[in-house]
C-alpha cells in the first residue's frame, strides 16, 4: 500500500509541478523515488509540524497543491488547529497524510500511536477523510485526493496486510465498497487495516462485508440500506470507538434506521504494554479471535 502511495504521488507530481510534498522530517525510504524524480518538489520542513501546515496553506493559496506528510500522531493531531484555521476554513487544496495510524508503531509507545485522529478531524468542516484498506483503495484514494481541490485527510494505517480487492476500484464520494454478500442478516463494516479482519470474520458468520474508504462524508442512503437489511451491524476500526467510523454509522442508524450496532475499536484507553503490532491488537481486543468472540455474544 505504501508503494501504491509513492507511485501515485510520484506519477502525479511528474505531471503537475504544482504538487509539492512537505514532510516533517519523516518518510525514511518512502520518498526515495519522489526525491529522485522530482527533487524540486520535495520540501523537508523539519521537525516543525505546525509551521509545515501553515506553509502548506500559504503555498495552496498561491496556487500550489501541497501534500503534507507526517505520522498521524502529529499530523493531524499536533497540528489540529492549524488544519482547522489555515486549511479547512479556507477550503484549500491540501492533502494531509497521516501515516502509521493506529498501532503501527506498537513498540514505540503511546506517543506514536493514534486512535483519536479521525474523531478529531471529523468535527472540522470542509474536510474529507479517506482511510484506504489496501493498494487498490490507496490508488483510488490518491486519484480522488489529488483532484478534489479541497482539504483531505488520508489516514494510512498498517500497510502490509495485502489486498482486500482483486483489482482496480472506483471511489464514489462517501460510498462504502461491498466486498462480500452474505446470507446472514449481519453486516460487518471495516475501514483501513481492519477490513482484512472483516473479510476473514465475515466468512465464518456468512455476513455481508463492506470496506469504508471514506470516513467523511459517508453515504447516508447506503448506510441506511445496510442497517435495514441487517439485524446486527458490526463496525471494525483501529481507532477509538468514540468519534470514528463506528460512531458515524451509529449516528446515521440512530437517526434513520435504528438497528443493533457493535462498535469494535479502541475502548477509551491508552496502550498499557509494549510489543508487536499483533500484541497491541490483542491487548486492545482487536485480534480476530477476540472480535469473533464478541460478535458471537452480540448476535446471540
Amino acid at each position, binding site marked *: 500500500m505504501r508503494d501504491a502511495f509513492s507511485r501515485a504521488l510520484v506519477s502525479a507530481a511528474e505531471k503537475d509541478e504544482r504538487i509539492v510534498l512537505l514532510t516533517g522530517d519523516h518518510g525514511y525510504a518512502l520518498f526515495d523515488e519522489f526525491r529522485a524524480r522530482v527533487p524540486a518538489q520535495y520540501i523537508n520542513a523539519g521537525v516543525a509540524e505546525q509551521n509545515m*501546515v501553515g506553509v502548506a496553506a500559504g503555498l495552496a493559496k*498561491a496556487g500550489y497543491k501541497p501534500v503534507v506528510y507526517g505520522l498521524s500522531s502529529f499530523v493531524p493531531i499536533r497540528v489540529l488547529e492549524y488544519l482547522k484555521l489555515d486549511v479547512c476554513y479556507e477550503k484549500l487544496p491540501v492533502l494531509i497524510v497521516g501515516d502509521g495510524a493506529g498501532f503501527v508503531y506498537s513498540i514505540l509507545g503511546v506517543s506514536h500511536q493514534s486512535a483519536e485522529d479521525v474523531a478529531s478531524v471529523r468535527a472540522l468542516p470542509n474536510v474529507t477523510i479517506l482511510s484506504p484498506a489496501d493498494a487498490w483503495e490507496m490508488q483510488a484514494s490518491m486519484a480522488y485526493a489529488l483532484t478534489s481541490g479541497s482539504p483531505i485527510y488520508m489516514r494510512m494505517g498498517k500497510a502490509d496486510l495485502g489486498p482486500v480487492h482483486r483489482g482496480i476500484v472506483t471511489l464514489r464520494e462517501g460510498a462504502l465498497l461491498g466486498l462480500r454478500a452474505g446470507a446472514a442478516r449481519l453486516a460487518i463494516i471495516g475501514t483501513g487495516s481492519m477490513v482484512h479482519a472483516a473479510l476473514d470474520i465475515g466468512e465464518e458468520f456468512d455476513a455481508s462485508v463492506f470496506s469504508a474508504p471514506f470516513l467523511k462524508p459517508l453515504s447516508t442512503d447506503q448506510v441506511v440500506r445496510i442497517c435495514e437489511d441487517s439485524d446486527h451491524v458490526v463496525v471494525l476500526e483501529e481507532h477509538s470507538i468514540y468519534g470514528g467510523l463506528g460512531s458515524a454509522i451509529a449516528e446515521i442508524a440512530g437517526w434513520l434506521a435504528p438497528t443493533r450496532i457493535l462498535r469494535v475499536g479502541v475502548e477509551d484507553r491508552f496502550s498499557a504494554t509494549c510489543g508487536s503490532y499483533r500484541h497491541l491488537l490483542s491487548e486492545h481486543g482487536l485480534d480476530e479471535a477476540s472480535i469473533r468472540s464478541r460478535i458471537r455474544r452480540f448476535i446471540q
Partner: protein
Amino acid sequence: MRFDVRALRRTVLDMAYAGKTGHIACAFSLIELLAVLYRSHLSYDPKDPMNADRDYLVLSKGHGVMAQYACLAEIGWISPGDLGRYCSDGTRLTGLADPHVPGVEASTGSLGHGLSVAVGLAMAAKRRGTGQRAFAVIGDGELNEGAIWEALLFAAHFRLDNLIVLVDENGFQAMGRTEEVMRLGDLPAKFSEFGFDAADADGHDEDAIDDALHRFSQRPNGKPKALVAHTVKGKGVSFMENDNRWHYTRLTSEAYERAKSELAGVYPR
C-alpha cells in the same frame, strides 16, 4: 490614497465605539506600519484584492485588525457601511482577522498562524520567480508562540529573502508587559541569529519605517528580512498610551469623545 495616520486612528476609534469592542490599543500601535506598507511598499490592484500578482500582507497579529480594516476601507475593499456595522449581528467584519474579508490573507485571531502562511506565500512566489513579496506583521506577545520560531527557521533555511517580517514591539501582551510575562531579549539580535537581515526603527516614524523597508528591498541577499518596530501600545491617544487596560476596555461615550478630540485634524507629516 494618503493613509493619514490620524484619520486611520479615527476610523479605528469609530469602529471600536460602534462595535463596543476592545483591542483599540493593539490596533493603534501598528497604524504607522500599515500606513507605510499600503502607501509605499505593497503592490496591489485597488480594483481587485485577489489579483494573483499582488504582494501579500498577512496580519499575523490578528487582534490588530481594526487598523487593517481602516486601510482596506481607504482602498475601497471595505465599505463605510461595513465599518459602521463592525461586530454587529449578521455582518462580516469580525473582531479578529478573517480571510473571508477582501484584503485579509489569513485567519489570525489565534496567534502563531499568520507568519507560517506568509512564509508559504513567499515560498510560492520564490519558486515561481514572480518577484512578489510577503509581509507579515506580528506582535511581540505573539513571539511567545513556538510556531513563530519554527517559521523563522524555515524562512531562513529556504532563503526566502522576499519575506519581510515586521514586529510590532509595543512591549505589552494581554496580561502585562512582555518583560514581566515572557522576556524576549534583544529582538534584532535574535532575528539576526536566526539568519534574518534584521533592523529596528521607531514604529511611529513613518520615514524611518519607509527607509528601513527601502533598504531591505535593495538587499536581495538570500536572507529574509525583519524590522523590529519600537511602538507604543495605544499610540495617538494620550490616556491609552502604555495603559494595557485598552487591550480590553470598551469605550464609554466620554472616553470616545476625549479620544476623538485628540485625534482631530491631520497628522503633521
